């Protein structure tokens, strides 16, 4: 866009409101949009200063659309980085500088940028990043797969998994509200199943354009903002691990423990803004399906069909992967005879997570699993349900 045209843009007038008002009281309207468009509409109301992009399928469209927001005057800065690692490093710098930032990637892009993610957590940077998941195996695939989430589990970031475009919209906005709490202040990833959600259209309720999230206050952060124009200029977060002595090791260990503590503190804010780390339907059923993302939608179909056959099946939709809803799942698992965990990846990371927190974990059925871009027909979930009652 020519410079003169950019300069001529008038920033839209939107009233800043607190998160509770934005999520619970602001007017909403129904629109028929894709998951990628839901990202754009969330960002429009997120009061973000800087968004930085780098293309990768199936994410490219979302950050392209976020770029349109810059043209509309909703962002102060928007540019394309040299690659994913450069993008993740640039958003880190912007966040250290005290502004609200957003980016997105997916699949191989996630792995190319991987070193940045624990660095974000260690830097206490409240960055929100959308991950449009896809396969990352060789031979090359661009198709849906949630394998990258297994790699992200121990980066220190918060992880939320969207079932549909409505979740995409709400989770991105709510992720800012959670991450920016002074006692949390670690980055959050919103995971969106590539193509199944990003490229499909649905009815979602979005907040009207007259309001946006209130501004981020970097002076109520748990670390000093890197403000190069105000004293003391060099309030750096220098590495302290360059010495081989106990003091350095001890400081590093205490630092890492504090990142874990921050994730733990996020629970109460996830409960407040997301309504809980999980959603449960029919919690007393002997057969429970526990899963996340679009596997939840496929499970809903399977549960309806099971009911037609006289089989009672409950559902746990896991919205927060990090922190993991340990106590919530333990409580529900106590009553269940079987726990079916359908997943869109080969390794079954969700089944492993659930097995690791309950004692009688031989009742966890890590199936069905599809990957490499395969769809998950409800019939294969139904087949697992039928096996439980045979």
């Amino acid at each position: 866009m020519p410079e003169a045209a950019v300069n001529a843009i008038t920033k839209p007038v939107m009233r800043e409101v607190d998160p509770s008002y934005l999520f619970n009281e602001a007017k909403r309207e129904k629109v028929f949009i894709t998951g990628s468009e839901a990202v754009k509409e969330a960002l429009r109301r997120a009061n973000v200063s800087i968004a930085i992009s780098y293309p990768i399928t199936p994410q490219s469209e979302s950050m392209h659309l976020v770029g349109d927001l810059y043209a509309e005057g909703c962002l102060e800065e928007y540019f394309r980085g040299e690659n994913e690692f450069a993008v993740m490093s640039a958003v880190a710098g912007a966040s250290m500088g005290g502004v609200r930032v957003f980016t997105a990637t997916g699949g191989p892009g996630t792995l190319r940028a991987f070193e940045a993610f624990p660095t974000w957590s260690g830097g206490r940077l409240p960055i929100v990043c959308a991950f449009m998941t896809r396969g990352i195996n060789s031979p090359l695939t661009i198709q849906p797969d949630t394998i990258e989430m297994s790699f992200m589990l121990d980066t220190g970031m918060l992880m939320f998994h969207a079932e549909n475009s409505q979740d995409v919209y709400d989770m991105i906005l709510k992720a800012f509200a959670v991450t920016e709490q002074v006692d949390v202040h670690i980055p959050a990833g919103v995971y969106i199943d590539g193509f199944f959600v990003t490229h499909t259209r649905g009815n979602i309720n979005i907040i009207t354009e007259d309001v946006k999230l209130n501004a981020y206050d970097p002076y109520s952060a748990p670390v000093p903002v890197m403000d190069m124009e105000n004293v003391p200029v060099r309030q750096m977060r220098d590495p302290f691990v360059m010495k081989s002595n106990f003091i350095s090791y001890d400081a590093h260990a205490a630092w890492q423990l504090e990142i874990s503590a921050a994730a733990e503190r996020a629970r109460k804010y996830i409960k407040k803004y997301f309504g809980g780390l999980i959603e449960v339907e029919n919690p007393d059923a002997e057969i429970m399906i526990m899963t996340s993302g679009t596997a939840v939608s496929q499970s809903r179909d399977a549960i309806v069909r099971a009911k037609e056959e006289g089989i009672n099946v409950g559902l746990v939709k896991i919205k927060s992967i990090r922190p993991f809803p340990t106590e919530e799942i333990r409580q529900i698992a106590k009553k269940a005879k079987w726990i079916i965990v359908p997943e869109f990846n080969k390794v079954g990371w969700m089944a492993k997570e659930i097995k690791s927190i309950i004692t009688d974990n031989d009742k966890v059925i890590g199936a069905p699993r599809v990957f490499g871009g395969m769809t998950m027909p409800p019939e294969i979930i139904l087949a697992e349900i039928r096996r439980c009652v045979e």
Partner: protein
Amino acid sequence: MTANVKEYRVVAGPEGYLAPSAAVMGVVLPEKGEALIEGAIVPEEEAINKIAEKLLAANNPVFFPGPSILWAWKDGVLEKAAALKRLADAVGAKMIPMPDYRPKYPMINPATEINPNHPNLTIWHNKIDACIFVGVHCHYANMALKIVRAGTSCYTIALCGEVGHEDAMISLRDVKATTIDRITEAVKKLKGGA
């Protein structure tokens, strides 16, 4: 975590090789009007009185003011700093600043400075048995409080302007100049009664 997590208490150390995060051990931060004493939620007033008691019982209480009170980035900081001086005078406590968070090599001068990466050095060197963290950014305060709890027997108190610190033995939240003045009053009252 295990079933005994809820019984975890944040008490004076030395706790051991590596003290855990109190938050991960099940200690939760107080809501407005509340405070923490050794991991338990209590009314703010109770914690204020306990702080006064601990400060007066100490042989060498020292305050550690951090950048958020050494630099007037926010409204109300000057008033808070003045209130802190009044409290120090009432207690008879020294002040050793935490001017910034950078690691300094080969090491800081523990007689005049404290650093979040090795706060135990300053506590050991000065034989500090009770301390107050105030104006220290929350991340660095939590980190330092864990290291202090792991390696020293110092009783830690955090006067937090934000939402508090599980890793301190006593923690107030939303601390303003008026809150500090209430501690000063409690100190004077205790001294007067002695």
